[in-house]
């Protein structure tokens, strides 16, 4: 490994420190990542678009400002990948859909503006399930992303591009969006860290909507501290998003540094363990519980009886909102436009229908049909209405549980990464991957996933999820950072589960240049 490649193995916090200390420049750091992207993206398909020029320009600007003695934000010069769901002015934004192929937004999402203001070079846009509908990134119109632990396996979804990029050291940080687990489940199956903040904690303005009441933007990283650093950059009130919380960002970075667990009550959610969880997933979870107990936490078991209905409610609310949010892709103002076959001068309605048919993939169509049905008059009360009631009950379950515990924990996903193609023909099996992550979205509470080790049976990474009450995001960072440290002590080495990942560069043709990735 060259020294330049070594730069990519640092944590974001270490990169920030190195930049501040003048050990290397942002241009060097950014170029190191671009080189690695050029080498590995052809294999991983984590990035849909790489912006070498833009990233290096930002890096050079940050270096110049630093050289001029300007005081810069902590992460200035540390490169980042952005999920292709966030609008980036002048850079293609597709949300993984054919319908937006070639569309270049005329504006930046608020989070992108904040990244730019904080001086983070944007490496490019990462792959995802179309409109964030999926748990495997197989539903991307631009081909699946591959898991760096095993190229035949899925990297999770919908944010598989961001998690794979982070886990394969193509980027130290990435932006994700989490509607039912799309940050946390990919983090779990790639051995990385991902956090879904409290609903309203990070602006959704300019992030392409899947289900407005469930979507939340959050950080993807390799350590809990790095996730917290990014969380602070993107979080906070945005007047452009009516659902954004008008309060300061919770002190997540400070929490990640303070790892005392003494007297902390940690609740195990009875409904999110046991049956349906892979043996190796359960074993790593149990180990983490034991580590927390030994470190002084009080372990309690809590019950959330209405979680049994969470999946059903989620798959009514999400498609309902999505069917309406995706109505705008009608070929009238932007996006793919095709005429219907065999019609000479088609009407606008015919063009809309033909374009939507050609532009949307099967999973998107499936959910639009579901949602349209659920909202139909005569069915609304039985479906959407009932689902909203379930949502209230789930929120009450959480409230009761948080009276007994400061944080709740569960495995993030029931299994390790499955093989590409395994669940494509069985939507229900695919949906079940999010059984542990969905309740947090329904209730709007924050959740964080960090690696708890690898499963004995397949050697693939396992994630543990930490949930906190709404607006108390700092709690999950505190517990997450503490557990991360306990696990690192146990594992030795660099302390990262990624130490155990196979070298993804093995077998990859060397000598590829950055040009190839463009």
């Amino acid at each position, binding site marked *: 490994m060259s020294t330049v490649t070594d730069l990519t193995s640092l944590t974001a916090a270490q990169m920030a420190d190195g930049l501040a200390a003048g050990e290397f420049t942002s241009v060097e750091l950014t170029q190191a990542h671009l080189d690695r992207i050029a080498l590995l993206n052809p294999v991983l398909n984590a990035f849909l678009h790489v912006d070498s020029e833009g990233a290096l320009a930002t890096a050079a600007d940050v270096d110049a400002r630093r050289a001029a003695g300007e005081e810069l934000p902590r992460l200035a010069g540390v490169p980042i990948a952005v999920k292709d769901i966030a*609008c980036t002015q002048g850079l293609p934004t597709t949300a993984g859909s054919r319908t*937006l192929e070639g569309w270049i937004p005329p504006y930046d999402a608020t989070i992108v503006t904040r990244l730019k203001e904080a001086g983070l070079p944007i490496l490019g846009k990462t792959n995802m399930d179309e409109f964030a509908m999926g748990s495997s990134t197989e539903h991307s119109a631009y081909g699946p992303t591959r898991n760096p632990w095993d190229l035949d396996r899925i990297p999770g979804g919908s944010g598989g591009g961001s998690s794979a990029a982070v886990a394969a050291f193509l980027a130290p940080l990435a932006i994700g969006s989490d509607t039912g687990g799309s940050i946390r489940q990919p983090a779990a199956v790639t051995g990385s860290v991902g956090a879904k903040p409290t609903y309203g904690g990070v602006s*959704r303005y300019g992030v392409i909507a899947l289900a407005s009441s469930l979507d939340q933007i959050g950080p993807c990283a390799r350590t809990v501290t790095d996730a917290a650093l990014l969380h602070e950059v993107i979080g906070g009130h945005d007047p452009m998003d009516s*659902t954004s919380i008008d309060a300061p960002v919770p002190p997540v970075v400070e929490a990640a540094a303070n790892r005392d667990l003494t007297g902390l009550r940690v609740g195990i959610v009875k409904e999110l363990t046991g049956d349906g969880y892979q043996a190796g997933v359960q074993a790593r979870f149990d180990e983490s519980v034991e580590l927390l107990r030994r470190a002084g936490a009080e372990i309690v078991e809590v019950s959330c009886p209405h979680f049994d209905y969470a999946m059903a409610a989620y798959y009514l609310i999400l498609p309902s*909102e999505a069917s*309406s949010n995706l*109505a705008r*892709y*009608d070929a009238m103002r932007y996006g793919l436009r095709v005429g219907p076959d065999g019609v000479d001068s088609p009407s606008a309605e015919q063009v809309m229908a033909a374009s939507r048919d050609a532009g949307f993939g099967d999973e998107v169509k499936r959910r639009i049909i579901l949602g349209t049905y659920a*909202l139909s008059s005569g069915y609304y009360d039985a479906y959407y209405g009932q689902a909203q009631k379930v949502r209230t009950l789930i929120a009450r379950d959480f409230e009761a549980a948080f009276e007994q515990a400061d944080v709740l924990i569960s495995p993030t996903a029931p299994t390790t990464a499955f093989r590409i193609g395994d669940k494509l023909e069985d939507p229900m099996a695919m949906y079940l991957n999010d059984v542990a992550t969905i309740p947090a979205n329904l209730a709007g509470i924050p959740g964080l996933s960090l690696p708890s080790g690898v499963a004995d049976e397949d050697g693939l990474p396992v994630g543990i999820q930490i949930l906190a009450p709404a607006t108390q995001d700092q709690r999950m960072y505190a517990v997450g950072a503490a557990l991360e440290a306990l696990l690192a002590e146990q594992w030795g080495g660099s302390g990262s589960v990624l130490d155990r990942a196979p070298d993804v560069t093995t077998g990859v043709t060397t000598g590829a240049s950055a040009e190839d990735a463009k």
Partner: protein
Amino acid sequence: MSTYTQDVVSYDEALTRYDPVLGLEVHVELNTATKMFCGCAQSFGAEPNSQVCPVCLGLPGALPVVNARAVESAIRIGLALNCEIAQWCRFARKNYFYPDMPKNFQTSQYDEPIAFEGYLDVELDDGSVFRVEIERAHMEEDTGKSTHIGGATGRIHGAEYSLVDFNRAGIPLIEIVTKPITGAGERAPEVARAYVAALRDLLKALDVSEVRMEQGNVRCDANVSLRAKAGDDATAPEQLAVPLGTRTETKNVNSLRSVERAVRYEICRHAAVLDSGESILQETRHWHEDTGVTTSGRPKSDADDYRYFPEPDLVPVAPTRERVEELRATLPEPPAQRRKRLQADWGYSDLEMRDVVNAGALEVIEETVAAGATPAAARKWWMGDLARRANEAGSAVTELGVTPAHIAELDGLIRDGRLNDSMARQVMEGVLAGEGTPTAVADARGLELVQDDGALEAAVDKVIAANPDVADKIRDGKVQAAGALIGQVMKEMRGQADAAKARELILGKLT
């Protein structure tokens, strides 16, 4: 222009057999500086698609933010319509596809309107008052505006292509919906017109809309149905107990006169359909101003499925009771009450008052009186010379360059005896020509009644001496002959004399 053949029966005949029931939906464009959910300006007549942004274009990722000013206007309208104001209400998405609707859903309100359960008392032509019950007033956004090019009708069918202007997309609208208006009987068309007129006056007084119907600031959809007539009294319980007939909805009727005509036409058309034993098709209809008829639009059933659900991108609107009361305190005097008060204050006859109101001169006269003119003088100027001038120029009376202060000043000059009527008209010419204030014009043109009794007396003596015959007639008691002498005195004084004073002097000397 197309021709339509549709059976209608005469209005009088229709009313012998049927009782009309109305439902009026009025869309009001608010005059807020910016749109309902974004910061775009919404000025009339701007270059197409120049007042747009990611939000009102429905770009991927864009989110709405409620215009607080529009909510205030909605609450004030609700209060002025004697409505309850919701403690808590939400926006909802009305989902349907249309090329000029950027998101393919309209952000509106559904079962939780901001205002509900009110009424508006409407004054009819004979001075009687008809109460129209209001079901709800809710907030929503306008769509873009389609222009269909090619084809004969200007409608989408047969058009070669269509242009869409999204400047209108997202303009705040308040939709005001009446309850079924029963009991109007033969006066239903008049009630419809008077209701829209009263609503327009109210909105203008509230200063929440430009209320220019010709610009589409106020658009009326008129629902009409007929039911069997139970007796001569349209308000009798046995009449009100008769079930409502099937309705039609005539869309976008954009003038007061058209509202009355369209309702009247639909009553006649419904009657013909029902007379022939057929039933009314529930549908929307288009009003044709030129031919005075309606034509079939699209079928509409109560089961049109818009898949409404609460707008998840917006938080609920929950005005505090304190805020509602603060807004209530900003309400203007109700227009009908104000008219009554002013008529009493000014001593105008009913006819004079109606002319003033119809001419839209109420405000300017009020300001003129406030500036010091007598009500009679204010009415005389604004409804007389100036109204004629405005009419000739095709402009509004307030756009002539004459202000209420000018009129008050001119009236003061007359009352002070500085000008007579004919001089005052000359001064007005000068003001209209932009020569300055009435005093400045009078000074510049040397217009002033001669106040020097000596000069006037000399002129009188001179005229008497020059006209001994006339003087003798007056001495013999023919007082009316004085007019000839007065005319000559005025001529002698080059018009700048007080005719009354000249008469007094002449008669004093000869009788």
